[in-house]
């Protein structure tokens, strides 16, 4: 390669690099330093599930820490297998959720990429994502000997009933009372309203970012979304998240204007289902890009803004009962399939990539039916990848590579027809 070509390749790569990434890394570093030094600064730390109601924590100046985000970091740094094995040595079955296994063993050895999470003063478990978090948080409540609040959001197979609303709504009050006891302070209602407003604003902004991929070529891919997701999970309800996503949105809009895609030659537009395979995001991203395929959307990152329609920023505490209950994972398989079909239309998708994730039963059981319903209704093919989000032992590279190649080959034939 001549020097000119090397430069050209470099510029081409630079062009595609999302500039906001640097800022995001800074924000997350600050966030974790803040969390890890909480005790020295007389701040309380609450561990909370990814779909949990974080806003009252923010309003009460309690630092929320997310074991699931930590799980993703462990997976991405390829430290999942070691920690999972440690949990197995503690007696936890190898079939259990790899986030849970990693976190449970990590707490006892302070391992992982950031030397463990700061010790919690309390635990907040929202079971809108799974039943696993209930068991996981019970274990941590025993281990750390701290109070546990369970935010119980009844599953909406076909409907959200009034009695569900009443039950969840009364838990919002119980939750606030729990926090007031834990901190010895009263919740500032004005501040709470502000945090609620910022939460909704952040979710809207995140949705707007994701929506930029309706453009062709898509300015970002699901792999980018997996990364940029961290703030809407961890800092939902803060100005920081709103500002960051505004910046990211501006950058994406700029890329759209300049016709810069996440993948150099976007030919196939795909939709990803389920959690990322954290230890292989780069490999998968390169693999699909090499086939001119871009994962333009996914069901996972959109889950943090998917129930916006039930949220009312002017009446946050009342509306969060429904908003937190009717999230993507807490609804029936057929409603999930309808939601996937809507995304297929919205993002003009050519195929579905389904990650059958051994770690996540509520997300994965039912995928075969979703696959069938989407194929029937939208006439698009799908690819099923058997793996795990954090436990690399469940990933068979050669098999998955062959399947991806065959899938793209099929898409090629279909587009010729």
């Amino acid at each position, binding site marked *: 390669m001549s020097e000119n070509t090397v430069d050209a390749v470099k510029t081409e790569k630079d062009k595609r690099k999302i500039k906001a990434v640097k800022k995001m890394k800074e924000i997350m570093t600050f966030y974790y330093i803040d969390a890890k030094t909480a005790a020295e600064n007389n701040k309380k730390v609450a561990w909370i599930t990814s779909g949990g109601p974080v806003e009252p924590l923010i309003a009460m100046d309690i630092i929320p820490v997310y074991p699931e985000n930590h799980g993703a970091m462990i997976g991405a740094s390829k430290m999942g297998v070691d920690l999972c094995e440690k949990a197995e040595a*503690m*007696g*936890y*079955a190898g*079939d*259990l*959720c790899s986030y*849970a296994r990693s976190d449970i063993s990590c707490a006892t050895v302070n391992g992982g990429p950031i030397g463990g999470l700061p010790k919690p003063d309390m635990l907040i478990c929202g*079971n809108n994502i*799974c*039943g*696993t978090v*209930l*068991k*996981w948080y*019970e*274990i941590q*409540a*025993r281990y750390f000997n701290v109070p*546990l609040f*369970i935010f*119980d959001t*009844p*599953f*909406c*197979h*076909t409907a959200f*009933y009034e*009695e*569900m609303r*009443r*039950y969840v709504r*009364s*838990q919002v009050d*119980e939750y606030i009372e729990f926090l007031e006891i834990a901190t010895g302070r009263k919740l500032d209602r004005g501040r709470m309203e502000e945090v609620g407003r910022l939460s909704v604003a952040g979710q809207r902004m995140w949705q707007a970012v994701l929506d930029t991929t309706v453009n062709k070529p898509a300015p970002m891919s699901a792999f980018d979304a997996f990364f940029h997701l961290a703030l809407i999970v961890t800092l939902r309800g803060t100005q920081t998240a709103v500002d960051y996503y505004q910046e990211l949105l501006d950058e994406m809009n700029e890329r759209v204007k300049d016709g810069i895609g996440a993948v150099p030659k976007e030919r196939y537009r795909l939709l990803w289902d389920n959690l990322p395979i954290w230890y292989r995001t780069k490999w998968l991203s390169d693999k699909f890009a090499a086939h001119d395929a871009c994962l333009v959307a996914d069901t996972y990152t959109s889950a943090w803004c998917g129930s916006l329609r039930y949220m009312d920023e002017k009446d946050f505490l009342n509306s969060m009962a429904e908003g937190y209950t009717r999230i993507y994972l807490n609804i*029936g*398989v*057929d409603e999930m399939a309808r939601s996937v079909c809507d995304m297929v239309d919205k993002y003009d998708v050519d195929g579905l990539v389904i990650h*059958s994730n*051994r770690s996540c*039963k*509520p997300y*994965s*059981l*039912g*995928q*075969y*039916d979703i696959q069938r319903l989407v194929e029937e209704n939208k006439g698009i093919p799908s690819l099923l990848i*058997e793996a795990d989000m954090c436990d690399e032992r469940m990933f068979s590279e050669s098999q998955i590579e062959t399947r991806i190649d065959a899938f793209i080959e099929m898409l090629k034939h279909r587009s010729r027809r």
Partner: protein
Amino acid sequence: MQDIFREMAEIVRDPFDYGWKSKTLSGRKVVGYVCTYAPEEIILAAGAHPMRLFGTTGSIERADGHLQSYCCSLVRGVLEEGLKGGTDFLDGIVFPHTCDSIQRLSDLWRINVPQGFHVDAVLPVKLDTQSARQYMIDVLHRFKADLERELDCPITDENLSKAIRLMNEIRRLLRLIYELRSNQPGLMTGETLYTIVKATMIMDRIHCREILQELVEKMEAAKSSHTYAKRLLMAGGICNQPQIHDLIEAAGGAVVWDDFCTGSRYFETPIATDKDPISAIADRFLKRAVCPAKHAGLRNRAEDLIRIARERKAKGVIFLYLKFCDPHAFDYPYLKNALDQEGIPSLLLEVEDPLPAEGQLQTRFEAFLEML
């Protein structure tokens, strides 16, 4: 006693055949359910016959098109029977909300099994707060209204009270049978005891009460000379592998009590008869020994287990878990440690239908029993 054992064993061997026959003979509607959080009393009060489903004894083929291999064999087995028509005699089915897998089973059944009506009873997961209690009552009221609509039959308080008395009586008798056998394990094999509980969940409850009563009388009069040296407690979700008892007994042990939902969790805690029936049913669900998919405290399951082991003078505990059953698997290390601290040895068996080769299990039981 042998006649009763034979009758019950026949029902357990082919519950669907029993379902068809009993439906044809009685003309009563049959409502299937998948876990012990199903409010049987309300089904009975609607004049219907509640029947628990236990998966399949056959191979799993059709369900493989809907559920991954990392779903437990119970859930896959129930769906298999639904898909292949084994449960076609059911007029409807109820899915109480428990674990993630049963939650999705409900969806898959609703989407893929056309036979009969489908009702979800989305119970609270948390059982130890006032608002959860109120929600539990609300859910049961909705369930009652759903059944009234689907079965086209009003459910009166009088019938609810009658159903509660019937089920309380059955629970009392089962408990008595457990007591009698615990005192004299030689009275019947563990497999027989297990068959009695399972048959109870399948068969006509009025007839069931009669034969359980008869059984109690016979057991009270019976004497067994056979003594087992090693008294054991067995704990887990559902025991679908009764052959395990043969192996344990062959190794010189006897399971004298259990913490299974096909065992003591089904019959412990009667329903109060001095208050509003729906609230009384709700209160039983809140108070009874919990399934680990529900939350009633942080240490209650270990405390219960230790208490039962002490009460029943069990020398050791066998955890019998269904592979891929997350709620139980998560609780195992904590329960085991709690037992260790009390000096109660335990053994974990993770099984799937069908069981592994007998020799392998036999060796493990022998080694465990030797240690006690």
